């Protein structure tokens, strides 16, 4: 999603325009719906013990909503921490290193958690 001003003026002085801001808001709107479901679900799943939690994740609706929640939340927090790093770390090398680390950490967590959900889902019927 881009703003019409961007296509006229290029990316602006920050080099990024308003894309970051818009993505932060779009993921926030998604989380407005996903987080209440997630809070309720994770309590129910945790109280059900190992077998119960497995059964809960293995239900297709739960697996899909879980993957959507993870995707929206992880992207949202990558954007958020990016701003915190840019605000407080002035030293260029450290700043770049932390920005890269932020991206790597979030993508690694996304891969590990989404693959876990898929594994539970796909092995449930077997």
């Amino acid at each position, binding site marked *: 999603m881009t703003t019409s001003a961007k296509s006229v003026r290029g990316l602006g002085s920050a080099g990024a325009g308003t894309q970051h801001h818009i993505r932060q*808001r779009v993921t*926030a*709107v998604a*989380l*407005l719906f996903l*987080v209440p479901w997630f*809070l309720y679900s*994770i*309590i129910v799943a*945790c*109280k059900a013990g*190992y077998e119960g*939690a*497995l059964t809960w*994740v293995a239900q297709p609706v739960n697996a899909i909503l879980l993957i959507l929640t993870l995707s929206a*939340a*992880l992207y949202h*927090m990558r954007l*958020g*921490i990016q701003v*915190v790093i840019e605000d407080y770390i002035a030293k260029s090398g450290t700043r770049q290193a932390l920005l890269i680390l932020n991206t790597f950490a979030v993508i690694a*967590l996304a891969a*590990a*958690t989404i*693959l*876990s*959900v898929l*594994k*539970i889902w796909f092995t449930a019927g077997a």
Partner: protein
Amino acid sequence: MAGQGRADSRPLSPHLQIWKWHWTMAGSIFHRVSGLGLYGGAFLIGAWLVALATGPEAYAFVEMIAFSLPGQILLFLWSMAVLYHFANGLRHLIWDGPMIGFNPGVASLWSMFNFAFAIIGAAVIWSLASFY
């Protein structure tokens, strides 16, 4: 200009240490603090999911940590951070979209409400979770 000293008596923007605390300021700071906390929390939730996919032994280990006293305190703080970031995030969306709630009185009250929502909400969720 830099290097010329400050001849005029206009005030500098106050630093955090000498700024009088008020609700909207605390509300903004805690939005960032809770966001940072949730970043860490996401890795703990992730550990729970990975353990669930790994097997019963790994899951038992995560359960043991989660049900210990430090684990329970951490989970309570996590739920409070989720509720606060949720309520204050909704306010940001209302600021950006319909653009209401900028009036200082309303903004302060709204900040107080968000803190109360987080504390009372977390308490209600944990009492319900332990009873049912």
